[in-house]
């Protein structure tokens, strides 16, 4: 067992490096991924280790970059595209949603697009509305894309390796606040993959089930610890990949706890987490609920700039804690 505590940026870099070493067809392209080391330092020294051909700096041309990755993926390469901020995927949406996602299906399976699009997302950096969104519902609503939302370095490493292996386009959404924070768990050495489509039960409890994505897993975890000290035990589930979505552990847990709370940073309206609620409502586990399902999500507003406003726009630890207490207290 390793005790290496890495940040998510380091873990992602390590996964990319392993893939680079394993497969010559893997390469990274994106704005400032080369000598600069990536806007958030994720590619780091890879430019020096693998050279300018495999760590390919691009002009600021998201549509062109993603399109080039699609074409390269169709032609035998396994590109990893880094889009500097997930918000900028809007520039590349034709290539993501109309091309990459649909080529395999439209062409009757003749071709496939083994491509990973990595991009940082989320609020908390004061970068305001065009640099802070959580866009997983955009991608999750397009059949043909797999969507991964890692919440910690160890998962990020295993999931990214599996994403690079995957013969389909994978959108890999990294929360930027997690880049610099070491995870709770050490990152294993080696190249073990974490299969896409398998949720992780982060901790088990009997009073409440929380399903959270991305950074909200970390915030929820802190709440779980605090409540555990008071005798309230919570099951925390991290879907890890939201397309495909693994609901089985959620059903099993809700059948034990009878209470479900879902947490995401992105806006509530038409957010991804609603899919969890919808699937629960349509399942036979619905009859196990002893409480209305609680949803905690961002406000339905663009992410504001000022720190107090930004904080107010998305669920904070205190919000999760209060909601968890309330649901356990009120519904017995």
């Amino acid at each position: 067992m390793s005790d290496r505590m890495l940040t998510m940026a380091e873990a992602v870099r390590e996964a990319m490096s392993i893939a680079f070493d394993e497969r010559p067809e893997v390469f990274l392209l994106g704005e400032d991924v080369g000598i600069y080391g990536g806007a958030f330092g994720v590619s780091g020294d890879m430019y020096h280790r693998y050279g300018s051909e495999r760590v390919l700096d691009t002009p600021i041309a998201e549509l062109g970059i993603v399109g080039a990755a699609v074409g390269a993926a169709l032609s035998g390469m396994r590109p990893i595209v880094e889009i500097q901020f997930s918000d900028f995927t809007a520039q590349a949406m034709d290539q993501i949603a109309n091309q990459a996602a649909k080529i395999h299906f439209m062409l009757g399976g003749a071709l496939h697009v083994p491509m990973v699009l990595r991009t940082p997302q989320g609020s908390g950096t004061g970068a305001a509305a065009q640099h802070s969104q959580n866009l997983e519902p955009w991608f999750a609503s397009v059949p043909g894309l797999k969507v991964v939302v890692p919440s910690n370095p160890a998962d990020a490493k295993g999931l990214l390796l599996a994403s690079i292996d995957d013969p389909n386009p994978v959108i890999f959404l990294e929360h930027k606040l997690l880049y610099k924070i070491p995870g709770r768990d050490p990152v294993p050495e080696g190249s073990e993959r974490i299969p896409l489509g398998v949720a992780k039960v982060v901790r088990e409890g009997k009073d409440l089930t929380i399903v959270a994505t991305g950074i909200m897993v970390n915030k929820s975890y802190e709440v779980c610890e605090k409540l555990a000290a008071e005798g309230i035990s919570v099951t925390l589930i991290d879907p890890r990949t939201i397309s495909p979505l693994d609901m089985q552990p959620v059903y099993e847990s809700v059948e034990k706890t009878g209470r479900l709370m879902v947490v995401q940073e992105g806006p509530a309206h038409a957010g991804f987490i609603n899919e969890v609620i919808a699937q629960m409502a349509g399942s036979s586990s619905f009859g196990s609920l002893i409480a209305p399902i609680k949803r905690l999500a961002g406000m339905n507003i663009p992410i504001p700039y000022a720190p107090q406003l930004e904080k107010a726009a998305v669920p904070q630890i205190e919000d999760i804690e209060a909601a968890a207490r309330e649901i356990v207290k009120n519904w017995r």
Partner: protein
Amino acid sequence: MSANPLLMGHPLASTENARHALLYMCRIRKFEEAVEDLFGRGMMHGTMHLSIGQEASPTGMCMALTIQDQITSTHRGHGHCIAKGADLTRMIAELLGKEIGYCGGRGGSMHIADVDTGNLGANGVVGGGIPIAAGAALASKMMKKGTVAVSFFGDGAMNEGAFHEAANLAAIWNLPMILFCENNKYGMSSSTEKAFAIDNLADRGKGYGIPGINVNGNDVVEVYEAAQIAVDRAKKGDGPTLIIAETYRWKGHSRSDKNLYRTKEEIEEWRLLDPIPKFIARAIKEKKLTQEQCDAIQQEATDAIVAAVNEAVKAKAADPAGLLDAVFKKVSA
């Protein structure tokens, strides 16, 4: 594998080459006519974009390509497919929504791809294929495949950001790519005069630092010659080329087009510039083909299309049962 492997070389280099050029132009013409007929009979779903009148451009371009060289195509893509060597029966079958169609009925007219002939697919989005071709060229360069990637697109696509971004990437990365514009004068109803502030579309190449060549897109010989120059440049590592092939679509943009934006006289003028008789005259003059041979080739093309339609019509309709499984490629263990 296609029944008709690509033949490379100058259309007038030999009788065989001349025969190939004529046969493929005629195949495209007859294919499009058959599609129009099937559509008219209500046997075809959706819409269609016919390339009648433009046959010389894909034929001339593809005679400069190996079967490994790649292309991306457009919504008006039947010609590119055929010129690159696709199987006619599977093409018709796709348009008829049959299981044996290139896409198993999932793509239809705008999404035919043929891996065996290096065709990365037609595209329903204007300009959608251009960055993809740049990526294919990037892969070729990285993998040292020695192949070239050609992106066919129309004049309309040249005003898309995708064209700009892809052209620039191809240029700065020196990619083995050919940006092949079939300038048929109209992006749907918008004439090039309305849509561009420059007279010569090839001038756009300068902006990216790549050569821009104008050719008569209705002359298969001229198209081939320009294409061969571009292919040679690409394969030598000298980077991309922009080719503007001036041509004209005789038919409307799609089935619903009433031709309100152009005159009958203009269409008639261009009909007189039909690339097929033009090439027949040249081939006979240069003694590569006789009139009898030309007649026989045209008949052969017609027969091939009729046979393809007959076979495709009989094929099994595409089955919805497998739809869910078709979204993702299976992850191999």
